[in-house]
């Protein structure tokens, strides 16, 4: 399972970077979204996979016992997802606006700010 998820993380990173390198703005955003998911999967993987042992303290126990899933990556991923949710919604509004104002979605034509005038 770890191998499978590791390969999946690799695929997500590769796909994300490939899309970022394209010239279209929409593909850029999709690429960033995919990269973000890749990172979340990586964090999940880094916590170690434990099957069927949630980190719950049962009512008769006082502390966690035996093998249990690491709860920290879940908290990290949840935070990362919330943050990327905010950023991505901003990004979508931004590219919509950029398309309206600049009348193009080709990144190569966006070179006004780098002109030496």
């Amino acid at each position, binding site marked *: 399972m770890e191998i499978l998820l590791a390969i999946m993380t690799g695929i997500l990173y590769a796909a994300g970077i490939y899309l970022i390198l394209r010239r279209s703005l929409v593909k850029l955003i999709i690429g*960033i979204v995919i990269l973000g998911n890749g990172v979340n999967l990586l964090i999940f993987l*880094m916590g170690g996979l434990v099957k069927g042992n949630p980190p719950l303290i049962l009512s008769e126990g006082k502390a966690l016992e035996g093998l249990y899933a690491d709860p920290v*990556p879940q908290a990290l991923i949840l935070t990362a997802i919330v943050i990327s949710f905010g*950023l991505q919604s901003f*990004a979508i509004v931004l590219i919509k606006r950029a398309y309206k*104002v600049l009348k193009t979605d080709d*990144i190569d034509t*966006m070179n006004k*700010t780098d002109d*030496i005038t």
Partner: protein
Amino acid sequence: MSEHLTIYPILVHLITAILLLFFWMNPKIQRYISIVGSAAGIVIGGLLFSRVWENGIQSIQLGNWEAPFGISMVADTLAVSLILLTNIVAFALSIYSTENMVSSRVKFGYYAIFHFLIMGLSGAFLTGDLFNLYVWFEVIIISSFVLLTIGGRKIQIEGAVKYFTLNMISSIIFLTGIAMVYGATGSLNMAELSRIIPEIENKGLMQTISLIFFIGFGVKSGVFPLYFWLPASYHTPPAAVSALFAGLLTKVGIYAMLRVFTLIFPLGETNQIILMIIAGLTMFFGGIGALVQKDMMRVFSYLIICHIGFMVGGLSLFTEVAIVGAIMYMFHDIIVKATLFMLGGVMFRIFGSTRLYNMGGMMDDYPKLSFLFAIPLFALVGIPPLSGFWPKISLFSASYTAGEIAMLVMFIFASLITLVIIAKIWNKSFSTSDPKRERKLSFKYFNDFSFAEKAAYVAPIILLVGVTLYYSFFAEHFQMVAERIGEELMNTEHYYNAVYGIKEVSEL
């Protein structure tokens, strides 16, 4: 109450921002709240600084969870001095924004976002947890996106697309690094990491992770191959926003580098060489870039990159003297870069443009202002006894004693190129006679302003110039602070003991 002082710099700006959100549609009240909030920020920053100065590093465990499990907030001398400087700049900028920001932009929530940004900065400086640092970084960049696009002019949107993409990617790289650190060590608390990492045998992996962090922070601070977003976006928003970004945002990247590469991954031989090469190239390309630009704001943007090289260079030498130099340079740079962009905004109002060939005759028309503006410009070059001079002594001597002559040459080159650029700006805009300028009709020039409006533009510049002069003539105070920071950074046990609440035998 006062034992929680460590957390107050964050809270004061958060509460200010919430208050501002309640007065969303009322720009006038927002201006007052913002000024009061920033002033309170200075007071709290000063209190915290004096407390840390007297009692050593302060730490607090959020939610009362013990050290490696919860999130620690750690106020060491580096963090508190940066917070104090941040709050001073923020105070100046909230006065400056009263006139520089038109009401329609204030109605989009400019002031609230401004305070969220300062809150993010304070949080990033204070936090003792790697993932929490990431969260504060995101608070900073989300706020900066909004500030960058507020107003929505064509050029702003275009700059924002570039800024957004690169910063987003850098966060993702940073998060990747965090994931790998967590996988390798099972901890994210910086103090605990400083003990775990040296004991890990897989040095190659640690090297890789540290470079991933370097790339992440490098994008934020704008080092050589990763800086292209910076000159593409920093000149697009109004001067107040540019000044905020120029003074503080890139420095957070440098702060994170200083923290991570002293505490968690102390620089090894290989990383030192990599950082050195990158610092040299940053200074070179930043300087060259600034030389060819013909617009004042863009020249300043490239100068930011050029001077980031000084700080990365100081870090890369990794001796106490060099780190002291880098930190002193950082203090100087925060104040002066913010001042530069603010005076850029004033000159835009005077000439109706920031292009160099549209300027001229400042000296004849506004002799007092010219004198005022000369101070930050010359401080930037480092003409003794102004503030840029003092950190360079430490940096030059450190690179000489370390035997890194190439680094020394680059430092001198960057100083010279700054001198050339400032001389060019001085020549063009101050000493040449006034070219026959066409007056734009629907544009409010500086001499149309009422006294109050002029004061709102100039008073904050006077404030920051005052800080620069204080730095210039009482540099030994800053030197003392920087030396203590250098000592704290190089001996990580102080930080560790503070987080874990271990009492230190007093040696001061």
